């Protein structure tokens, strides 16, 4: 692939670099080690949620329940710590399989719209998290400290977990039947069904994977901050979706990758960090996040229309 072609096919990467350079130019302290490390630390937890979500979105569905599930897994993980450190790891993940399977079951069995289904489960799990643990809980043991304090080459281990998860899902998406079927069903679910693609299985599996990612994110989060908070996932579905879309995953399905989502996650965090360092009031964050999701959506819709108008114009 020639360099120019590569750059054109990697719009999101180019934008990330440009945004980064702008921030570095405007804020002198942006380029120092601590800032970069902070960005990586911050994205690691919510980033895992975003890459999990991207798997669902590529398959043509959406999971709005990731925020609530995140809250629930945070408090479950902390409470389980009281019994045994290992339970704090295992129980949230087992629970996540069930939560994702429930979403997938409702969507496939009753042919419901995934947005509506997960809007429902979102509310259910938000309530469940509060009932289970109405207040903030601190982590009793030192197990979590071990997780959060361990580092390799000066970078915390959980940052590696994030990148490892992205690479694993990238391989799953492009090198397994399940992953590749998601692209087909995302582009045209009816044609996929007629062509004998097991749409129901892929949909359920994608939602299970997404929930597992959320659980891992929640475990990392609790170990990082040392506590479990029943509303820690509020709004997470929006920032995760924003990152997914910024990474160039199409909301219509069938387009994107886990690595692209990583780019989207970094892009979002670079912008937010840049704002903090520029002393822009915190209240602006929500507005900027909202604006970004709208911009990403508009770009996505514009690209889809352009592709429909001029099918030969876009290289595959």
């Amino acid at each position, binding site marked *: 692939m020639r360099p120019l072609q590569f750059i054109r096919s990697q719009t999101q990467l180019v934008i990330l670099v440009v945004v980064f350079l702008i921030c570095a130019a405007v804020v002198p302290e942006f380029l120092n080690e601590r800032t970069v490390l902070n960005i990586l630390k911050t994205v690691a937890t919510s980033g895992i949620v975003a890459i999990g979500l991207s798997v669902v979105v590529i398959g043509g569905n959406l999971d709005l329940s990731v925020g609530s599930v995140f809250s629930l897994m945070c408090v479950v993980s902390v409470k389980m710590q009281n019994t045994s450190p290992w339970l704090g790891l295992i129980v949230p993940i087992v629970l996540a399989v069930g939560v994702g399977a429930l979403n997938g079951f409702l969507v496939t069995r009753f042919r419901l719209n995934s947005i509506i289904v997960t809007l429902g489960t979102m509310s259910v799990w938000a309530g469940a998290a509060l009932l289970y643990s109405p207040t903030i809980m601190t982590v009793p043991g030192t197990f979590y400290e071990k997780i959060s304090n361990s580092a390799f080459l000066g970078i915390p281990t959980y940052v590696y977990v994030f990148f490892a998860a992205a690479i694993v899902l990238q391989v799953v998406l*492009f*090198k*397994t*039947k399940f*992953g*590749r*079927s998601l*692209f*087909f069903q995302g*582009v*045209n679910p*009816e*044609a*996929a*069904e*007629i*062509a*004998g*693609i*097991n749409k129901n299985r892929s949909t359920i599996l994608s939602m299970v994977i997404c929930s597992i990612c959320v659980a891992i994110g929640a475990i990392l989060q609790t170990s990082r901050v040392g506590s479990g908070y029943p509303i820690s996932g509020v709004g997470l579905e929006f920032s995760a979706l924003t990152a997914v879309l910024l990474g160039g995953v199409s909301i219509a399905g*069938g*387009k994107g990758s886990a690595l692209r989502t990583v780019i989207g996650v970094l892009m979002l965090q670079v912008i937010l960090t840049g704002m903090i360092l520029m002393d822009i009031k915190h209240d602006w964050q929500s507005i900027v996040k909202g604006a970004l999701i709208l911009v990403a959506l508009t770009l996505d819709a514009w690209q889809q229309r352009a*592709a*429909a108008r001029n*099918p*030969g114009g*876009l*290289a*595959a």
Partner: protein
Amino acid sequence: MTGTNSEIYIEARKVRKVFQNTVALDDVDFEVRKGEVHAIVGENGAGKSTLMKILSGVHQMTSGELVIGGERAAIASVADSQRYGISIIYQELSNFPKLSVTENIFMGRQIRSKAGVVNFAAMASAVREMLQEYEIDINPRARLDNLTVAEKQFVEIIKAVSVYGTKVVIMDEPTSSLTRIDIEKLYKIIENLKKHDVSVIFISHHLEEVFEIADRVTVFRDGRNVACIERKDFDEDELIALMLGHSIHKFEKRRIDRREVIFEIRNLSIKNRIEDFSIKLYKGEVLGIAGLTGSGKDELIKSLFNLWPARTKDLYLKGEQIAIRSPIDALEKGIVYLPEERKTQALFPEMPVYLNILAIWLFHCVKRAGADKRTELREAEALIEKLGVKTSSPRIPITSLSGGNQQKAIIARLLAVGPEIMILNDPTRGIDVGSKDEIYRLIRQLAENGTSIVLVSSEMEEICYIADRAVVLSKGVVRGEFSDEDVNMGNILPCAIRSDKRGVGA
């Protein structure tokens, strides 16, 4: 029939329409009198719909002239067409299902009180009057999605004549999804339209209906107006002969060995669509299932793959009973399916040609889908060559190919799995003549190599061209079965269009 006066309302002279390289209408003359019911018959692709689309402003003619109400007219858009008093009643109606009959009729032209508020009472009473005038029994307050298909059509007609002042109503196959009782109601409305001096252009494949309602019938064939016949001269055999013309060739038939039954359907029934259908498919045979839109053939085929619910259905593969719960089950048994709607049911639009071709192969023919890209491209390229898919590269999006080449790519997708049985639903719909021919030859070649093929089509010529045996469906009932030399237009067309009062849902 009464109320016909001989004053001409629309006169079309030497209308010509060329699409890219094909001549759809070849210097057609056509006229409509005030208050007459003018039927148009002809095979699919004869040019009926093209002319109607020109009259309703969807297409513009390449050359020719139009005189409407005594003046030269130019129709450049649907709005122009409406201004000249022409309305087309579509099969898929464009309406507002959640609103009432009254609101639908007055949509965009609401009656307002002096204060500028929509005056529901005035609109409701106006609608009640209109409905009475045309003897239609519908509650003006009923929500549209609670009405039957027929009633929705009636609402559309009322809207056209009462609100838009339509002088000519075009009905394109209005009866294809109606029950017998609804058809009678439609006739009554047409009679009332005539009384109001409104002309009706009635397109139908069913000659019986034409004879019941039309004052005149125009026959289209190969883009030409071949005859215009007055009611007093109607003759069924003559009309069929005119529709067929001389364009049917005597196709060479082959002798095939019908000993080995490979697939069998027994007692297939579908609610309101198909009654007790049974058929055997022999090895290496091309079996045609012919039927017009609304004959039930589409539902029949879909039900085989459980994409449409069947009441009863027994399937046998090589003598053993099998169950097919999804297209996946069918694939595992060597049965592949080409759906009728290429765009919505077969294409993966933004994906490259090679992935479109490998959509089944990837998931059913290789152990791991992560085989390297080179193997995949090689597999796809072999199929591209085998089927003569014209594409500059296997990596370009499928949508950049012509319709014919898209279709060949989809057929390549089916061949990739080496199927024993292929069920093709309208495989040549909307593609150019050249690709059609290639697909026909491919079908014949596959059959000669032992693949068994079910060809479902609404184009009778196609069935006659390549089918070794054909069953003809009309209104859910088998009207005839023909083998070898008997698979010809003279036998099949009458079965498909001579609709009597028998049939499912009648």
